[in-house]
């Protein structure tokens, strides 16, 4: 049976370790703050103020009106109106502008005749995501201007008010201002917990091996399960503190809505953190080398939680094989739960499958970690 006393002694030793190394402790608590600041304040996938250049070949009242329409849009920042392709070429090469609009020499003539004026739009496509958004926004500005011109044209010809046959009213749910931080910050909690778990636990047992302490531990009556639980207690405390910091900062400093139940959130964090720490310990027990353990830890927990979990990049868009892989990434389920609780305010009736899978994962990894450690100890 597990001895509570021995487990507690192990936990106390780990706590002592942590408190004797205040710098690591401070970093363990500062990493989430830095990540939140980065994602909450500095980084954004929202495309606004796209640096734009206009080559106005015609220079007429009409062309200036179009430029004004671009100037008036919050998506574009017209840096310069130029009079040849040369500066456009140079600026796109240097990455100074992303998009250039060329207004043809027959622009106003076509419009006055009721014809179609062809605008040329040149785009730096290197960053395909930003480029697609910029193209979509440019189409929006041009379509609006086109509608305005038609209205005026019909009015001037005395054809009476012109109606748009079909109009769209769009409503955005859950994140009505379409701020990327509102969907990034809830998911970020999963990434933070994985990073902390990997940074802290993957080293701990490997370090005991490297320094030769494992043999000492082996000669004590300490059992593998007790070792795992004892080691975990201290890291669990740090991870939980990180989660609290992240939720508080996200809610109050960055104003991310928290619509669901706090209790459910705590439960999800608890289960996920436990599983992640067990995974770190398992790696640590297998690797026995801190450098190796750290690398494997980052590759198997941090990277998937960042890239394969739906944190930023939506799983739907991935190829089928990669989508299949994401089913074994625990963060995937945790992030669905986090976004659901934060943004949609949904509860256990919808989220129980996620919580169940996370619990299952935690239980399996815990069992395997204890067992592997047991075998290692015996075989030594």
């Amino acid at each position, binding site marked *: 049976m597990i001895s509570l006393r021995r487990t507690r002694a192990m936990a106390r030793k780990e706590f002592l370790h942590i408190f004797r190394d205040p710098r690591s402790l401070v970093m363990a608590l500062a990493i989430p703050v830095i990540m939140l600041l980065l994602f909450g304040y500095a980084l954004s996938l929202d495309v606004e103020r796209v640096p734009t250049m206009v080559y106005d070949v015609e220079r007429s009242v009409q062309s200036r009106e179009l430029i004004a329409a671009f100037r008036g849009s919050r998506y574009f920042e017209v840096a310069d109106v130029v009079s040849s392709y040369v500066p456009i070429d140079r600026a796109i090469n240097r990455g100074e502008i992303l998009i250039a609009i060329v207004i043809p020499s027959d622009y106003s003539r076509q419009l006055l005749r009721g014809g*179609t004026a062809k605008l040329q739009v040149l785009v730096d496509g290197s960053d395909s995501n930003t480029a697609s958004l910029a193209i979509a926004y440019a189409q929006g500005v041009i379509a609006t201007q086109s509608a305005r011109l038609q209205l005026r044209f019909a009015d001037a010809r005395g054809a009476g008010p012109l109606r748009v046959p079909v109009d769209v009213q769009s409503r955005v749910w859950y994140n009505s201002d379409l701020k990327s931080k509102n969907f990034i910050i809830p998911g970020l909690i999963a990434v933070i917990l994985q990073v902390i778990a990997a940074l802290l636990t993957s080293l701990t047992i490997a370090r005991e091996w490297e320094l030769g302490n494992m043999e000492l531990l082996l000669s004590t009556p300490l059992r593998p399960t007790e070792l795992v639980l004892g080691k975990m207690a201290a890291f669990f405390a740090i991870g939980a503190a990180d989660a609290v910091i992240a939720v508080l900062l996200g809610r109050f400093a960055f104003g991310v809505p928290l619509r669901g139940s706090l209790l459910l959130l705590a439960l999800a964090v608890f289960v996920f953190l436990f599983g992640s720490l067990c995974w770190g310990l398992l790696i640590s027990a297998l690797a026995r080398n801190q450098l190796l353990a750290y690398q494997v830890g980052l590759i198997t927990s941090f990277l998937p939680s960042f890239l394969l979990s739906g944190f930023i990049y939506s799983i739907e868009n991935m190829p089928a094989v990669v989508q299949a892989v994401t089913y074994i990434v625990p963060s995937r389920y945790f992030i669905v739960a986090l976004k659901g609780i934060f943004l949609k305010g949904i509860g256990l009736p919808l989220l129980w499958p996620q919580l169940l899978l996370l619990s299952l994962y935690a239980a399996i990894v815990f069992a395997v970690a204890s067992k592997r450690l047991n075998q290692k100890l015996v075989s030594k």
Partner: protein
Amino acid sequence: MMGLNWERIAEIVRKEFRQVLRDPRLRTVLIVPPIVQSIIFGFAVNMDVEHSRIGWFDGDRSVQSRELRAAFEGSPSFVVSRVLESDREAERLLDRGEVMAIVRVMPGFGADVMRGETANVQLLVDGANSNTASIVQEYGRRAVGIYSANVRDRQKNQRALARTQGKGAPLSMDLPSLHMETRVWFNENLISRNYFVPGVVVNIIALVTLMLTALAIVREKEIGTMEQLIVTPIQPMELMLGKTIPFALVGLFQTAMLTLVARVLFHVPVRGSLLLLFGSALLFLLTTLGAGLYISTVSRTQQQAMMSTFFFFFPALLLSGFAFPIASMPLPVQWLTFLNPVRYFMEIVRGVFLKGLGFAELWPQMLAMAVLGVTVIAVSAQRFHKRLD
């Protein structure tokens, strides 16, 4: 550089290599994770929005509402995956994330179109992922716009017909319109991986060289072999060179390997000069090796060194324009990125790969890296000396 004994340096280099390459698992770590990372970024990171699943609620059930649905189904951006029976299902579908958006056609839609009134369509979008939502919204408007234009053409024809039949309908006329022709440069088909895979090259060599340098030195301290090294005739400068040269070579090797992977496996174009790429890589390595050296002087244990590495590396990577455009950052943060060597190398690598830029365009970035690199190396070398003495 006077009193350096190159033989002793070579000896340390050899020892470091042996230490890293002796363990087959460590050898694997230098090769497999970089390739795995390129594969994930190459195949998984796809921000293009295609075939978004939408739900369809038709409260009108008219010819016109079916035509509108055909306009959505004809667009490659949408797949109508659910047809809602009642309005109440909308909330459940969006809550579960089964559809990205729901189009609601309310009763009276067809009649409005027939009468020539403005008919309204509602589009409910799941905004949880703001980026995808903006694109879906824009595509939705476009699909409706196409249908709207069709309706207008039809109305125009009817009026023209009515007029020829002498019923005095309003005069038909051609309305002016704007048409946009888009030409995309450098990444003509807007493929995400052409942007991300070159970024992975930067990411990997930064992390690996930074970490290996920091850990190699701290490991000696933690195990206690540093004292032994100090009592040998090896001088601090020699020790420093011996500890950094192997990792510089590892970095160059990985650059070559990942360039090959990008070219062969992902067909990312390499339009510029490879010589320029490797020359810039050397300048970049000055900064990462210097930073690794610095971390080693302030860390006692490998754990501290790893956490410090992460602390430095993570913000540097995210503020480099790797995945988040610098232009979207607040201005003070944009200024801060000028101190970030990763930013410059990212621009160079993408410039060489995608844009085929040369020295004429890229010298400012190279200069900035050289200045940063020399500064970092000088500061770290001084600290390293002091620590050893």
